[in-house]
């Protein structure tokens, strides 16, 4: 038998034919496609029983109630809680996206000790025992050497039991230096103290019942204050509600307002006085309130027989035409605004709480408070509400001699000293003090940081960073690797808020005294500990009276005792509203006269005339040279960018518009008219220069911004966290510089002079 080529061809043919009649090609083709439908690297989420748990979001000081969807032990989704008194179902994008922080790459997964340079992010994990021993050892040494007062704590808030534990710890330890990061609260609480006599009050606005809102640059719908509260109030507005927005830029709030009044920046105070002028002139003010519950409206004579000008006298000069000149608004517009405001049902004037500009102009704030007082809308439905923090039921702090001596020392930030007696915290002063001291005699030897990211959020950022770099020992309690955590020597990571307990009293700007509870909905994922527990442990290991001041085994026990009989309610429904109604006028005012003082007699002033006590309009001289820096840079808040201590999670960065960010470049908003003069076109690269620094940005032509003003969003330009936010855009804080009020020490600068040039 002969075998030749044709036999092999035939064999091949047979193989092919048989193959085609077998399942091989068909099944393999099919299964390959099924393989592509279920690629091993495409995750398959596990199913299981669904549960919903209520808790409170603590990503910002807004205090929104949330409900969390959990499948088995995985957190799947966060939604707004409909039955929560703060947000009534509404929730901001950060709240929704906070789930990404729980599982995200920027979590600090165990206690860490720095092994590299400050800011390099080089850390090695250590055990909790080692970490606590190291921290208490260091603090113990400082105390022994009589330097207890050189320990400071920077906290993002002074409300709630966690900040309270820090304050308590410093008191027992012997330091006066508990410092809250600056916020709109500074001006509000100082103004409330001056006009109404009580210290450390919460000022909120009852937006849900307000009928006519005049907002002096308040980013109500731009994610400031308590976004959930503000949005839920806005969502219930109908055609009878009026929102008037005063600001030089067409913000989201301005876009949604019934009327946008683009006053020149920094002239809000004059507008408020102008409105008061019209209201008084037309007799539209609340006579009952003015006559029976206020002081200093008319001119008055003191015990020595000196005659003082009253508020009425002050605003006499602020005629619509004069205010028009200052603000750039039409006189008629100002007049009708004042009239409509005073005649409306539940009018309220709001200011501050624009997270990005933490300028705290005390005069402006007093003037806005006075507007509310004029229409008798203090502690009334739809008005400005002033209330105290919840009182904690706790034993006295035990103090030894070191503690008594230490707490009696002046504060390192100069707040409450003879220089600035009426202000409680002045973090902005700290860098200057540290930089001014010589190396052996630092005012701060050890720093504890909790819920704050000052290395990022402070204006004149470069100086602040240099100052922090000089502090020998920094302990950070952050859950995330933020900019300040990267400066720390020891990181003692807190749980994510979905993993631990904490109380959330007095959300920013909310017009009712709500305290909520943030309770764990999942077991801690990593080796983290509740900061409350850690402070108690540190106190215990320091021993003596410090230990004795912390007679609790853990934070939960402390929390239960602090809230006493309210705790059951708090843990059952997740929140308590401590008073149905705000204090009536009869009992609301705690000063000598028991009245609302239009003339704040307690005001500690630099000058001695009436005008320096009355909320007169004083143009703030913002930093920069008028001739060289012809433009004014203002930061603005976008609801899509978290601009506080916490940076954007990836989901929020994904929502940022293409006219705000392009790859790593940030857009600066410029009016086309201004841009035309500078020969800049849409998308051009340009260098923005301020006295604090410079940055390369891209030009976004926006008709909605006042010519001569340029604006940058706050919250970008991070260097820490993860690649999803780090390196994107510019930190506007690095371009700003504070201007300190000579009597209050607060930062009054609402912007900075700048130049813009084609790059």
């Amino acid at each position, binding site marked *: *038998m*002969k*075998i*030749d080529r*044709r*036999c*092999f061809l*035939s*064999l*091949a*043919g*047979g*193989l*092919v*034919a*048989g*193959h085609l*009649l*077998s*399942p*091989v090609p068909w*099944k*393999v083709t099919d*299964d*390959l496609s*099924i*393989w592509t*439908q*279920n690629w*091993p690297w495409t995750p*398959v*989420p596990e*199913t299981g*029983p*669904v549960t919903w748990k209520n808790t409170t979001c603590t990503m910002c000081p807004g205090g929104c109630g949330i409900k969390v969807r959990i499948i088995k032990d995985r957190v799947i989704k966060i939604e707004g809680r409909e039955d929560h008194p703060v947000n009534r179902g509404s929730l901001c994008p950060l709240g929704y996206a906070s789930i990404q922080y729980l599982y995200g790459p920027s979590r600090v997964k165990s206690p860490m000790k720095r092994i590299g340079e400050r800011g390099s992010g080089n850390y090695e994990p250590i055990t909790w025992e080692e970490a606590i021993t190291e921290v208490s050892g260091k603090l113990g040494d400082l105390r022994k050497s009589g330097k207890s007062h050189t320990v400071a704590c920077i906290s993002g808030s002074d409300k709630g039991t966690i900040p309270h534990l820090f304050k308590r710890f410093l008191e027992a330890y012997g330091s006066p230096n508990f410092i809250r990061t600056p916020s709109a609260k500074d001006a509000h609480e100082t103004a409330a103290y001056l006009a109404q006599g009580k210290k450390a009050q919460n000022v909120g606005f009852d937006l849900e019942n307000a009928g006519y809102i005049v907002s002096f640059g308040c980013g109500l719908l731009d994610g400031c204050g308590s976004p959930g509260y503000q949005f839920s109030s806005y969502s219930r507005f109908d055609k009878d509600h009026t929102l008037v927005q005063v600001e030089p830029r067409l913000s989201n709030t301005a876009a949604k307002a019934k009327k946008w009044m683009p006053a020149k920046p920094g002239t809000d105070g004059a507008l408020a006085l102008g409105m008061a002028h019209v209201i008084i002139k037309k007799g539209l003010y609340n006579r009952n309130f003015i006559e029976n519950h206020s002081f200093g409206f008319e001119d008055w004579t003191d015990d020595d027989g000196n005659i003082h000008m009253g508020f009425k006298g002050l605003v006499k000069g602020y005629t619509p035409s004069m205010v028009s000149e200052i603000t750039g608004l039409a006189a008629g517009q100002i007049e009708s605004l004042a009239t409509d405001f005073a005649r409306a049902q539940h009018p309220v004037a709001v200011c501050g709480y624009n997270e990005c500009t933490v300028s705290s102009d005390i005069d402006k704030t007093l003037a806005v408070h006075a507007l509310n007082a004029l229409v008798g809308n203090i502690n009334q439905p739809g008005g400005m509400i002033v209330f105290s923090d919840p009182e904690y039921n706790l034993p006295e702090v035990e103090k030894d001699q070191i503690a008594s001596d230490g707490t009696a020392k002046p504060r390192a930030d100069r707040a409450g000293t003879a220089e600035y007696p009426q202000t409680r915290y002045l973090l902005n002063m700290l860098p200057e003090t540290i930089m001014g001291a010589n190396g052996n005699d630092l005012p701060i030897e050890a720093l504890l940081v909790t819920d704050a990211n000052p290395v990022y959020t402070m204006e004149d950022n470069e100086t602040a960073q240099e100052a922090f770099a000089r502090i020998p020992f920094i302990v950070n309690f952050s859950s995330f690797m933020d900019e300040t955590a990267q400066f720390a020597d020891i990181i003692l990571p807190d749980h994510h808020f979905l993993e631990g307990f904490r109380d959330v009293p007095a959300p920013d700007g909310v017009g009712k005294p709500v305290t909520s509870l943030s309770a764990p909905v999942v077991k801690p994922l990593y080796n983290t500990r509740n900061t409350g527990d850690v402070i108690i442990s540190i106190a215990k290991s320091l021993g003596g009276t410090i230990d004795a001041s912390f007679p609790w085994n853990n934070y939960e026990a402390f929390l239960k005792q602090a809230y006493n009989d309210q705790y059951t309610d708090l843990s059952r429904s997740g929140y308590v509203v401590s008073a149905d109604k705000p204090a009536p006028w009869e009992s609301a005012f705690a000063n000598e006269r028991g009245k609302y003082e239009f003339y704040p007699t307690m005001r500690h002033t630099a000058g001695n005339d009436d005008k320096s006590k009355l909320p007169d309009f004083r143009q703030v001289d913002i930093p920069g040279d008028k001739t060289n820096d012809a433009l004014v840079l203002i930061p603005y808040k976008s609801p899509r960018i978290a601009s506080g201590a916490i940076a954007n999670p990836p989901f929020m960065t994904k929502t940022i518009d293409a006219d705000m960010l392009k790859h790593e470049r940030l857009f600066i908003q410029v009016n086309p008219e201004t841009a035309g003069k500078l020969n800049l076109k849409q998308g051009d690269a340009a260098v923005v220069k301020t006295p604090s620094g410079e940055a390369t940005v891209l030009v976004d032509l926006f008709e909605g911004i006042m010519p001569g003003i340029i604006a940058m969003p706050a919250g970008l330009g991070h260097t820490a966290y993860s690649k999803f936010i780090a390196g994107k855009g510019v930190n506007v804080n690095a371009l700003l510089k504070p201007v300190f009020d000579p009597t209050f020490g607060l930062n009054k600068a609402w912007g900075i002079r700048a130049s813009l040039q084609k790059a």
Partner: protein
Amino acid sequence: MSTQTENTSNAPSNEPSPKKGATGWVIFAFFVIGFGFSLLGGWVGFPKMLYTEVPHPIDFNHALHMNLVYDGCNSCHYFREDGSFSGSPTLNECRDCHGFVMGINENEEKFVEEYVLQDKEVPWNIFSKQPDCVYFSHAPHVNGAEMDCAACHGDIGDSESLRSYQENRLTGYSRDIWGWNMSRLGEPEHAPRMKMMDCVNCHVEETDSQGSCFQCHK
């Protein structure tokens, strides 16, 4: 391409060379060999290569449990309040009885020691596990169409031991989904197979419509 070589040869001869080659029968035999080899390989060898037997973590005796519970399959495989179906029981449900070793058999011992006491869920092999893109709800089938468990899952409730689980090496799914018969002709061996067209056929029969994509996909 200017230089050209002369094509030297003449026209090709039309006659194939008279050289003796293999006969037609031999050639045909080769064809048959190739054909048969492929056919055999495809129908017999290929399934063996494509599927791999995955051992069960522990053997489970359904029949035994059925005698001890009051509500048949529902006792362990039940509907949750939101209408979703629980599927395989979790340790928490087993723990009520198997909190410690009762000493029934080796399997029980293994189950308690390796899973219950170590608080580790059993990685059961699920015969009917569908790809992630499939949305299947028991409620319309059990409550709406009043189908028995056995209609889709076979008589697994009466079994004393778990049947063999074979996994498709390419797709990762149980052989039950495709059907055990390579040709997909004739009756299924254990329980109805569950490829998309199998669902569709039943839907067309029962509801007069195959339904829309989203009815069964997510």
